[in-house]
């Protein structure tokens, strides 16, 4: 023990260091092959939405000589009723659908968490009012409401679409977040924080939110699927005027242009539906990993 020991500066030996979020995520994802598949699907569609539309001209070419052509090298998924390549339509249409759905999820989570936490934390008349509004939102059938709103709200841009989906869809989450907040606020560490005289905003953002974040993150992913269904449904029904192509518009055009009546349109009909189901599938598979990444109690040693 003669040699001079370096002053201990708080560096923790590597084996005791808390793993970074990346390490935790990587471990959680690679633990099960299904999660890897889920992540790959989501990444694939995200890249498609970001870079895919750059590969094609703004106006996709039509070709009257090749209506409902079978799959070929030029058109791997065949062509539609105008001779446009289905693959090109799927790729260019992914950007609007996925960005609007992602925004819808962000808005839903934002409104729902805010309403739920405020209502569950402050209780009293605030809670009463917020819960009345929540009941109201939950009772009114959401999809018919969206149809009716389409008369006064232009859903053209992804942000407008995401905002309206968020505004109509936060009810369920608000209730769930409220009940979680209710049980948290009776726990010892929150009582301690209040006893220390910490501000309400500190307790909400530093003590309560981190504890419900796993739940919120999972709902963020789940809301993406809800957003996709709602917007594709609206475009399918044709109640929104559309400027650009997307999967819902594809289904609408297929339905209204008689693709339902010919077996040759199989790939054209099925492709957008398959994409929607694939995205859902990817999200469901990934959710499983999310739970483990964000919930400290599920993490192993």
């Amino acid at each position, binding site marked *: 023990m003669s040699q001079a020991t370096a002053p201990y500066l708080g560096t923790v030996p590597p084996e005791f260091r808390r793993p970074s979020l990346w390490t935790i995520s990587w471990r959680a994802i690679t633990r099960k092959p299904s999660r890897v598949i889920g992540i790959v699907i989501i990444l694939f569609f995200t890249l498609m939405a970001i870079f895919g539309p750059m590969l094609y001209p703004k106006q996709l070419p039509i070709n009257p000589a090749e209506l409902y052509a079978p799959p070929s090298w030029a058109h791997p998924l065949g062509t539609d009723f105008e001779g446009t390549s289905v693959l090109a339509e799927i790729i260019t249409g992914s950007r609007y659908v996925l960005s609007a759905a992602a925004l819808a999820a962000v808005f839903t989570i934002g409104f729902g968490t805010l309403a739920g936490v405020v209502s569950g934390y402050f209780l009293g008349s605030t809670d009463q009012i917020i819960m009345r509004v929540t009941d109201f939102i939950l*009772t009114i*059938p959401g999809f*018919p409401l969206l149809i*009716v709103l*389409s*008369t*006064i709200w232009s859903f053209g841009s992804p942000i407008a679409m995401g905002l309206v989906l968020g505004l109509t869809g936060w009810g369920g989450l608000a209730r769930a977040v409220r009940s979680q907040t209710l049980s948290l606020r009776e726990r010892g560490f929150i009582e301690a924080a209040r006893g220390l005289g910490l501000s309400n905003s500190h307790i909400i953002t530093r003590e309560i939110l981190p504890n419900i974040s796993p739940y919120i993150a999972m709902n963020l992913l789940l809301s993406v699927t809800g957003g996709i269904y709602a917007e594709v*449904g609206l475009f399918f029904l044709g*109640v929104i005027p559309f400027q650009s192509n997307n999967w819902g518009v594809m289904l609408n055009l297929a339905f209204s242009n008689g693709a339902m009546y010919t077996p040759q349109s199989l790939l054209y009909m099925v492709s957008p539906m398959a994409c*929607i189901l694939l995205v859902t599938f990817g999200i469901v598979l990934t959710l499983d990993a999310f739970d483990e990444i964000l919930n400290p109690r599920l993490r192993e040693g």
Partner: protein
Amino acid sequence: MNKLVPRLIRRILGGIVMILAVASFTFFLIHMIPGNPVDAKLAQLEIAGVQPQQAMTEVHAMYGFMPHQPLYVQYVQYIWELLHLNLGKSITYAGVSVTHLLLEAMPWTVITVTSGIIVSFVFGILAGVIIAVYRDRGISNGLTLFSTFLHGIPQLILALLLAYLFTTIWAIFPYGSPYDAAIAPGFTLPFIGSLAWHAVLPVAAYAISSYGGWALTMKSSVISVLGDDFILASELRGLKPRIRIGYIARSAILPLFTTLTLSIGFMFGGSVFIEEIFDYRGLGYMLITATGNLDYPLMAGSFLIITVAVIVANIVADFLYTAIDPRIRV
């Protein structure tokens, strides 16, 4: 039991307030629509040579309020007409009253939705019991996977796929209208047969889309009952497994009845896709075509009816919940 009546009254009052709120919403919605459809209609009538006074009366019949009056007067008029079940007159179905159109549309939705839900309820309950009781066998895993998969398919895609696969790819079922146009409508055997044959796919679409939910809810309900003492007691008494499953199912099914009522209400809102795809002239179809054709009175009316269905279903479910389960009544 004595608390039941005041509670019911409170719920009904709450429901009425909600219906009024939705009616106010549709009223203000019409006033917020860009281009003011009421004034546009008035101008259109006057250009067509109708006397201003008469044009006003016609618009009043359509929307339920007199234009060019203070907003609160219009509002009171609108609500007053609603209380007399007068929802105005349709624009696309020239001059037919909205109430009449909706009453005609109602059976299409009610019959298909309820038969779809009943079919899915029966199969879902059976599947849920099988999954929960045979938890450690292969059949349980298979059924769970199957039910989860069906639960995950959105109704729009399901209905489109059913319509496309079974009418075009394999032409098994007829497509495009709710009955054979060659058969004269009436209470005759061939007509009813044709109705039923055409209804197979839409009803299947409702049934498949709600089956998974029933199976999974029933599964967890049965599992929670399995731990109860009276099940253990019946096992110790040496009752046959068949009778025991009957005991289990009977108490596990209770909470599902409330969900059943709720889902009938919500299916009214979900009827939009299936009615559009299978061309059923029900409430959802009315809502869609009215919105597409800018027929605002009909749109407001069908939205109101769909919402009322949900609100009523909520109240019935709440009432049923207390009436059906003796443990809550105490």
